């Protein structure tokens, strides 16, 4: 079943054209990794999938909901699209538990009790059960990012978007976050991941997409893209980062 369907997606900031016509389909349970040089539009593309960026042209359909259609309830649609940011973006005035419980309770997906139970389970799953009452400022970057993942999962989304989730982390903390993401992928979560972690992409991705200059330049299985890149630009990029 198709979870995300993108057709001829265009995005411009003023005169600057960032996305020049992207087509993509993501199937249920698939893990898609977006790679490419900075400025290639991969983060912008990701942010169009939950309309954090207004879409300039084309169609984005998530779970059969057309995000660009007039009268589409974007808030409702976003409840099913989890997002994890490079800078974690935990709410600093709320503790870990409150960070996770806020949205499920406010959006009435759960009662307080259910949300608390869910939060405990999720914190356990990301290995931070003992940090439930800490404030974000007292956590390391890696811990914050794991809480951010738990927070997104608390809404029980069926798609997760990751925007360079390990780029702001100290090297020794990258592993713990990637571990959580691997577990998530193994559990069958549909994931779209913008990443510079080629090792992760190679190991976990079902499909790797190389973007450059606002286009998808090349896509395929990790073996195809990393092992035998066909496009010159893909080759150049991989030569630099591998």
């Amino acid at each position, binding site marked *: 079943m198709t979870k995300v369907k993108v057709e001829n997606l265009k995005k411009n900031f003023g005169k600057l054209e960032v996305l020049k016509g992207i087509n993509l389909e993501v199937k249920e349970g698939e893990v898609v990794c977006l790679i490419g040089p900075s400025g290639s539009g991969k983060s912008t593309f990701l942010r169009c999938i939950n309309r954090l960026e207004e879409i300039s042209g084309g169609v984005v359909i998530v779970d059969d909901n057309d995000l660009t259609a007039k009268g589409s309830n974007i808030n409702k649609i976003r409840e099913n*699209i*989890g997002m994890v940011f490079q800078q974690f*973006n*935990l709410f600093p005035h709320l503790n870990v538990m409150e960070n996770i419980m*806020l949205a499920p309770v*406010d959006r009435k997906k759960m009662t307080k009790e259910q949300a608390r139970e869910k939060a405990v389970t999720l914190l356990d799953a990301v290995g931070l059960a003992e940090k439930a009452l800490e*404030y974000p400022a007292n956590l390391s970057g890696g811990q914050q990012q794991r809480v951010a993942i738990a927070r997104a999962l608390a809404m029980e989304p069926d798609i997760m978007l990751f925007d360079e989730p390990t780029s702001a982390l100290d090297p020794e903390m990258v592993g713990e976050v990637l571990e959580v993401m691997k577990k998530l992928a193994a559990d069958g979560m549909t994931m779209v991941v913008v990443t510079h972690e080629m090792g992760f992409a190679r190991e976990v991705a079902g499909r790797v997409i190389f973007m450059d200059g606002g286009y998808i330049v090349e896509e395929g299985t990790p073996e195809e893209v990393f092992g035998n890149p066909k496009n010159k630009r893909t080759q150049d990029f991989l030569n630099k980062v591998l």
Partner: protein
Amino acid sequence: MNGFTNFIDYTIGIFPQLLKGMSLTIQMTVLSLILALIIGILSCMFTISKIKVLNVIAGIYLSLIRGTPLMVQAVFIYFGIPAVLGIKILPFHAAIIVLCLNAGAYLSEIFRSGIMAVNKGQMEAARSLGLPYGVAMVKIILPQAFRIVIPSVVNQFIITLKDTSILSVIGCGELMKQGSLIVARNFRGFETYAIIGAMYYIVITILTKIAKIIERRLSNDKS
């Protein structure tokens, strides 16, 4: 020594009248600040709203207040407007109107800067969870902005307290006016204004101390 006891006696003599003035000063300050907070919040909402008309209304209000001196605003509202409309305004009411419009404009800008100072990612994270704009604002952005603006808001409170003295020009019987009345009677400007200065100083210092305590308590628990 004789001069000192003389001074003490003088102070005790005029103190009841000054105290009456101080009480009015504080009433004016508190009342106008309560109104100013409401005006400030409204004006700030107008400013950050996506509706153009509201932006323009707030823009005109802010530029008018910031672009004219408080004393001009005061005499305009007390003498100017009643002359045209043929109504009478009590000095106290005119003073409240001027002060709350004035402080409201500055508070509006303080609130706006506080909201702007909250990291953009906070709104994005809240919205990505499915929270509507209003909920994200109330539960995520405003609590953080609130902490950021406390020092500036307290500062504005102090400025407003001091600004009340300007309103002696429209005949409001607040502290400054009471002092001027006394001096007009006995020509003892040095002692009288020194005492008045000391009274403002003490009240403002107490206010600042209280604000520090509140600030510390709020920033203590988290980040």
